[in-house]
């Protein structure tokens, strides 16, 4: 059963079609990767999926209901979380507080109840804290909880962003180039983390340039070129597809699968 279904999706900026007539389906519980050269429209796709851009054409359906016209914060409450290509960490907070914001939609208390610090608020705070610590532990960052976010190196911050997105308890996690800027060790750790996320039952939609990572974690790969689908299939199928090789992979076909 497809958790996310995209039909004839299109997005044009002025006269330029960043995405055109794109259709694909992401099965629940899978790890689905989107690859393609720079400018192929991957971030545009993500921005449409998370409600930041409004599609020019087509439909997006999540768990059977349409995402059309939803504001980004509404998309989030449907169970979709995302990480960003350019880190969007809250540098004005600690690591733990960053992840606690991830729990925002799992809680209820508003401004005035918080101001009066009613007992319900205190209990909820403890619950949020517990959820956040759990997410940090899952990502191996619990020891950094109290550190100010602006004191952490880039690699750790990328993982904080993942922990934050996971703290929302999403059904679908959109990851926008999670390996960008990571060295080999960090990328290997990321690979394990993505696998564990998948094992936990979270569906992952991943945009990535690092072919090694993509081929090692993905169940299905979608290749975008000039905003349209070039090919879609398993990692083996994609690696052997002549169109894909011609357009994109080239010598990187050497990367081992398993």
């Amino acid at each position, binding site marked *: 059963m497809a958790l996310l279904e995209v039909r004839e999706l299109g997005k044009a900026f002025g006269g330029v079609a960043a995405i055109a007539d794109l259709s694909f389906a992401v099965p629940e519980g899978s790890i689905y990767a989107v690859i393609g050269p720079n400018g192929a429209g991957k971030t545009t796709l993500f921005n449409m999926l*998370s*409600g*930041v851009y409004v599609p020019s054409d087509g439909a997006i359906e999540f768990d059977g209901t349409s995402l059309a016209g939803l*504001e*980004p*914060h509404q*998309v*989030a*409450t449907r169970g979709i*979380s*995302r990480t*960003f290509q350019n880190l*969007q*960490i*809250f*540098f*004005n*907070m*600690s690591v733990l*507080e960053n992840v*606690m*914001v*991830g*729990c*925002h*939609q799992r*809680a209820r*208390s*508003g*401004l*005035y*109840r*918080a*101001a*009066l*610090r009613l007992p319900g*608020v205190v209990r*909820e*705070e403890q619950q*949020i804290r517990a959820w956040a610590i759990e997410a940090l532990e899952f990502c191996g960052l619990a020891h950094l909880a*109290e*550190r*100010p976010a602006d004191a952490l190196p880039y690699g750790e911050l990328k993982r904080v962003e993942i922990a*934050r*997105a996971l703290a*929302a308890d999403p059904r679908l996690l959109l990851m926008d180039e999670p390996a960008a800027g990571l060295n080999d060790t960090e990328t290997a750790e990321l690979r394990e983390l993505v696998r564990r996320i998948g094992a936990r039952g979270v569906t992952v939609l991943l945009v990535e340039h690092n072919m090694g990572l993509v081929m090692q974690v993905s169940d299905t790969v979608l290749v975008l070129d000039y905003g349209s689908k070039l090919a879609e299939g398993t990692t083996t199928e994609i690696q052997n597809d002549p169109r894909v090789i011609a357009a994109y992979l080239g010598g990187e076909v050497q990367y081992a699968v398993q």
Partner: protein
Amino acid sequence: MNALHRLRGFLALAVVVALLPVLFPDNYFVTVVGVTIGFNVMLAVALNLFIGFAGQISLGHAAFFGMGAYASAILTTRYGWSPWPAMGVGLVIVYVVALLISRPILKLKGHYLAMATLGFGIIVNIIMVEAVDWTGGPDGMSGIPGLELFGWAVDSDLRWYAVMAVVMLATVLLSLNIIDSRAGRALRAVHGSEVAAQTLGVDTARVKSQVFVLSACLASLAGSLFAHQQNFISPVSFNFFFSIEVVTMVVLGGLASTYGAVFGAIVLTLLPQVLVVFEDYEVLILGAILMSIMIFLPQGLFVGLVRGSTGLLRRLRPAAVATGD
């Protein structure tokens, strides 16, 4: 983290505030200037929620301070209302106005937001000056009755000190409570990265509007109390300069720090008292101080001092990691 630990700064503040009149009972600085400090702290802490924590700008908050004051003044002097319901009405009016302008204005950012709030503040102030039938015009309104609390008349400087001490401390506590909560983190997330906050389910437009309205209402409350304490108000107390003064208190102390706002309010209330000595040079020196602090200590005086002293302590005793307040 138990309540005592979390509120240790607040308790220290409360103790100092309570002890001052006991230790210096007839001191002008404590009772009279102290009351002014009380008002300024309320305004600075309220504004800091919007400017410091939510990362927005408002150069027109004096308008809300004034609206509360004038609502109380008009209802009590022209219509014979009792102060407390009048204060309530002022609160409602400010709530509605702030809510109405918040949605369109808060779509703006940076200098545009600054100008919009500035414009709003000036328009309100001009209405105070021009609507003479209602507001008494540039001459202001006098004869505003004092406050009475269940038969206890607030009719001396010391009693006003007590009232403002309680109200001020309540505002500080409110701010501390908010910051350390889901709502407070949503606020700060808006400042950190609005896009990321949205993708985590935070309705950023609503959050900005809510905190704007809250800080406006707190200013209105302060204004109503101000009217009853001064027994006289005039538009000149609620003009663009005062808006800038409150922003300066917040920025001087250090944005996104409740205690910073308290500190900034105290410093900026005392500074003119100190500068009066310099007479004609007063304005000049004020401008110079402002520029210097913003250039050399942009994180604010309070935060700068705190970081400086914790840095010193850390060198003397490498202990646990510092956290925010």
